């Protein structure tokens, strides 16, 4: 495995930009950017921690949308062609899920009109928005959490709660690396290719020497497969929530494997209100809440166990 640095990350994302937009981006510093948005007919925008900027026709970032470069159908089509390496059919499942993973661990979120087949989203057509979510590797992002996750009795089942874009995937990735470097056998079940961002069987991130990655497999199936095939001590997966994920998690925990996972939410109390999660929350021994208050990855709270009163409600 090799680690990408910021220089190559910038170059990586530029090569995935349509040529009609790339020319405006050569002088733009993307080091601190975390999202690049293309919305059909709307200004070309880049999100930084201090807010959104628009790219104008001189290739300069401005706060005002006036005079900014507008996204056309040709831009979106070309961007999709580059991202799918001219093979949309080969990325059909990923597109149906609403994203494409590209080299460097970046992900392109896709919005369009869903083509429904047998009651499920089969494809997205008339793509109207693309969101380049720029991945980053912050070594040490999970240091504070790691001290609580690794105890004398072993690793604790941990749930990371965070709103979108607050760094939960970065946190999971760093936890995997840190645990692996401390001799823990880690299995990553990466349904949406977010954590490891595997490309041709290789992750661009340092995930440690004792980490196995099962990429592109449903979490529920993947956890069982990982359990049977790789005998991990810890399974790390992202964004649980479906009943089958919870069932698979229960099986893994009952088999003696520890689970570290994440969920969208703003805090433990808010997540507890979701009826479908009441059972699963009881599995976890540690809860970590993240926010963007001081930038992505701000640790708001690390709590052992659920709030007492709410836990009783959950048990009921």
């Amino acid at each position, binding site marked *: 495995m090799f680690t990408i640095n910021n220089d190559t990350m910038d170059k990586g994302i530029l090569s995935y930009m349509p040529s009609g937009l790339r020319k405006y981006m050569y002088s733009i510093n993307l080091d601190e950017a975390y999202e690049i948005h293309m919305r059909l007919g709307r200004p070309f925008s880049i999100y930084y921690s201090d807010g959104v900027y628009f790219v104008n026709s001189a290739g300069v970032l401005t706060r005002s949308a006036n005079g900014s470069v507008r996204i056309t159908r040709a831009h979106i089509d070309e961007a999709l*062609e580059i991202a799918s390496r*001219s093979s949309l*059919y080969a990325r059909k499942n990923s597109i149906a899920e609403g994203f494409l993973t590209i080299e460097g661990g970046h992900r392109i979120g896709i919005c369009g009109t869903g083509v429904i087949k047998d009651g499920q989203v089969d494809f997205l057509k008339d793509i109207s928005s693309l969101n380049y979510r720029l991945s980053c590797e912050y070594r040490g992002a999970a240091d504070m959490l790691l001290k609580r996750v690794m105890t004398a009795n072993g690793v604790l089942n941990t749930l990371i709660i965070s709103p979108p874009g607050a760094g939960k995937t970065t946190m999971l990735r760093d936890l995997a690396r840190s645990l692996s470097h401390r001799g823990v056998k880690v299995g990553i079940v990466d349904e949406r290719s977010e954590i490891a961002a595997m490309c041709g069987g290789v992750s661009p991130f340092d995930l440690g020497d004792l980490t196995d990655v099962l990429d592109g497999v449903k979490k529920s199936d993947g956890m069982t497969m990982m359990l049977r095939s790789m005998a991990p001590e810890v399974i790390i997966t992202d964004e649980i929530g479906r009943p089958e994920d919870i069932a698979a998690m229960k099986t893994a925990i009952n088999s003696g494997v520890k689970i570290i996972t994440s969920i969208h939410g703003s805090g433990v109390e808010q997540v507890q209100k979701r009826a479908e999660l009441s059972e699963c929350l009881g599995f976890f021994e540690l809860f970590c809440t993240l926010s963007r208050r001081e930038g992505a990855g701000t640790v708001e709270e690390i709590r052992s166990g659920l709030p007492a009163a709410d836990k009783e409600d959950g048990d009921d």
Partner: protein
Amino acid sequence: MIKLIGSLMIGGACVYLGLKRSMSFRKRQRSLENIQNSLSLLETEIAFRGTELKSAFLNIDDPVFREAAKAIDGSGIKNAWSKAVKKCAPKLCLTDGDCDTLLMLGQRLGMTDTENQIKNIDGVKNMLDIHIKAARYDTEHFCRLYTGGGVLTGVFIVLMLL
């Protein structure tokens, strides 16, 4: 002596041109048949293996596909395919009509789901069938004509000059 050598050179050139034209009919037919077979392979790569176009093209032993594979990263499939067809057409003795049919493939290649890719490829294969039939007809009817015509013209010119 110089007159004899000159006459033989002109005669030889006529025979060569006749044979070359005759060979081009055969070559066109073979090229179209190869491309049609290659499209069947491409269909398999797409439908059953979900291979990306560049890899699929590299797995196919045909100059048009290999040429397109070289350019696909830089210029996208439509341009890469178009450039490849135009570049290889003279070498493969393809006519403008053949090229137009092949260029149609590039319009929709890669950028739809598997089902539509197969439909697109099948459509082009069917159109190529018509071109192959025409090429076979040309081979049967014009090959001998051009070979014989070249030789006879050469002999006639030599006789006239001597």
